[in-house]
């Protein structure tokens, strides 16, 4: 400790953590690549060892629904990249959101939720959670004061996507984090669109981050996965709002998660209770596939963002395009906020309106050949969809409008193909869209 050299921390940086965090080869037969532990369960040394694992006296694995060594590498890796204390991987992004909410809330609780979310998430909050006695108030993402006004006595958290799906409206995360913290509740952010390469929500006040790892993190459109990351800075004991975190828990010999595990209490509860009782575990094969994707995350995200900005420029100048929404556009209402929160790039999701409305939109979708028409985002390949007739089709007119969707909207997830090839493909789509009836009859 008396060496004066090297007074800057030498902890590993983002690109190195993307490749190495969470894994030590010398503990795994020297295997350079993370092994796939394709097993359901793990031998106990003796009865004492088994009891110690069940009592959370020791770290380790019991049963792959609760934890698995391959999945644990992924969890640590994402926690390290997000600046979190701990993480819990799940079978999908939706199960990550559901598990996070069920770890936080009980029947009779309330959440304040951004209105601009993935359609499945909207339905979870609007229709499914009320069946569990959890009610939600939706607020438009730009209505920062609205989040404050919507807080009730029984509110247990605020939830939102930093950049809303599909309209690309931003929520002012630092300001909304302050609102949550003044109310003594955590802010949960779905950062799927950003990945930690573009934004680490914990650094901007978020307490819990969720991802659909299926998207840019895995990146190749091959595997479903989700994750909950804990910031570790939320004080569960500051008030009496979270008795299941702070009071003795019958399910683990009177354990108080907050007292015993502090900055990792939420993850410990989500795993010990949520995975035990609900069980949406991630398969080791899918965890490994996601790890493969994360190894090249920064390389891919740079290319995604570079291509997205070129596509924005192209669409802005196109005669068939009525409007373009992407935070990189200078007159986008959230451009300044995006520049602050997303300095490494504004993401590769573009929403644009096609002249000719719904019929033109359908013709466009039906006539692009390189871009894939499917219900996913964040693939290495370029993807397109017409949200009003697909991802958000279960919403009624009023909900669509409140969520900022219009019938002329095309959602574009820009891939990493050669940019000229994407543009050429779009030209075919736009040509068809200008004559939708003729083309659809061909």
């Amino acid at each position: 400790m008396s060496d004066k050299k090297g007074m800057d921390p030498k902890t590993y940086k983002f690109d190195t953590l993307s490749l190495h965090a969470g894994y030590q080869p010398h503990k795994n037969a020297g295997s350079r690549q993370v092994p796939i532990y394709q097993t359901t369960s793990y031998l106990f040394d003796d009865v004492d060892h088994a009891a110690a694992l069940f009592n959370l006296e020791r770290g380790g694995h019991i049963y792959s629904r609760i934890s698995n060594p391959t999945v644990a590498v992924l969890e640590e890796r994402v926690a390290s990249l997000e600046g979190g204390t701990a993480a819990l991987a799940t079978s999908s992004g939706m199960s990550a959101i559901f598990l996070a909410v069920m770890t936080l809330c009980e029947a009779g609780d309330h959440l304040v939720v951004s209105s601009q979310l993935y359609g499945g998430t909207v339905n979870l909050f609007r229709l499914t959670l009320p069946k569990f006695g959890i009610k939600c108030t939706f607020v438009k993402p730009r209505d920062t004061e609205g989040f404050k006004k919507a807080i009730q006595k029984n509110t247990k958290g605020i939830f939102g996507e930093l950049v809303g799906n599909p309209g690309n409206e931003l929520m002012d995360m630092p300001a909304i984090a302050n609102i949550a913290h003044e109310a003594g509740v955590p802010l949960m952010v779905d950062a799927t669109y950003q990945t930690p390469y573009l934004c680490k929500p914990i650094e901007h006040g978020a307490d819990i981050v969720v991802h659909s790892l299926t998207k840019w993190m895995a990146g190749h459109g091959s595997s479903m996965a989700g994750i909950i990351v804990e910031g570790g800075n939320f004080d569960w004991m500051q008030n009496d709002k979270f008795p299941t975190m702070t009071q003795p828990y019958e399910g683990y010999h009177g354990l108080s998660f907050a007292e015993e595990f502090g900055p990792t209490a939420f993850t410990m509860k989500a795993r010990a209770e949520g995975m035990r009782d609900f069980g949406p575990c991630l398969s080791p094969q899918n965890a490994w596939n996601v790890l493969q994707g994360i190894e090249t995350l920064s390389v891919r995200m740079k290319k995604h963002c570079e291509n997205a900005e070129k596509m924005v420029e192209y669409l802005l100048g196109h005669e068939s395009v009525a409007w373009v929404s992407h935070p990189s556009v200078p007159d986008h209402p959230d451009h300044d906020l995006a520049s602050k929160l997303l300095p490494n790039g504004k993401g590769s999701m573009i929403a644009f309106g096609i002249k000719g409305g719904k019929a033109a939109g359908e013709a466009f979708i039906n006539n692009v050949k390189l871009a894939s028409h499917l219900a996913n985002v964040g693939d290495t390949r370029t993807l397109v969809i017409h949200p009003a007739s697909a991802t958000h089709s279960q919403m009624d007119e009023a909900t669509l409008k409140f969520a900022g969707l219009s019938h002329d909207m095309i959602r574009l997830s820009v891939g990493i193909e050669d940019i000229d090839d994407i543009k050429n493909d779009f030209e075919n789509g736009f040509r068809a869209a200008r004559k939708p009836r003729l083309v659809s009859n061909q």
Partner: protein
Amino acid sequence: MKFQVNNKEVYASTGGRPFDKNKPLIIFVHGSGLTHMTWVLQTRYFAFHGYSVLALDMPGHGLSGGESLKSIEDMADWVSDVIDSVGYKEASLVGHSQGCLVTVECTARNPDKIKTLSLMGGAGAIPMNPELLSLAENNDPKAVELMMDWAHGPAGHFGGHPVPGLYHINTGSMLAKTRTIKNTLGVDFRACDNYKNGFEAAKQIKIPTLSILATDDKMCPVKEGKKLANLIEGSQIDIIDNCGHMMLLEEADRVLNVLKKFITTNYPAN
């Protein structure tokens, strides 16, 4: 649990089991700027196996009230007061880093009260790098980042925590930032830097003592740990390879196995 020591509220984890005065007592003393949570992978085992456990939050740290104590000697007396406050006449002590200075001094001052002593990443003196000390006393978060960097060995920097999903460098950082850095880490570092009695105190210790050292410990290197251990009559040394100063997290299982054998042999439960 919360209890009073010298009219100040103190928090200590009891390892997830109710505190039972009929069982032998083990007290765990954390390192600079940290809290009781550093011990979670050791305390729960003993609490479930016949011991009463107190993993303390030192005054002004974690969930304990009051202000941080300014000298190792004051901390040593305070640990002794803890034993009295919970109605015990004796205890076994376990310390990490700064907690080793505290428990060595406490044992020397209370030869009949302390029955076994376990030191992890200990040394007879912990002189502080002046720049690190200054950063901590000026409330600079960089002090925490540097501490986490130096406290973890090369393997620990990659992670691979025994608790699935837990990334210990970020967890350690968060623990060290629980309270105001200058009031915890800053005061603790100054107390370590000022403390000069470690080697003399060690010479007075006559109880079973264990020193767990780690090959990649940059903060309290093996040779410093051995220097201290060799002054304690009959002390045992266990060296953990491929591990840094945060051995109680980096190699939690190996540390627990060594500690378990030592304590259950020398201070058996009923």
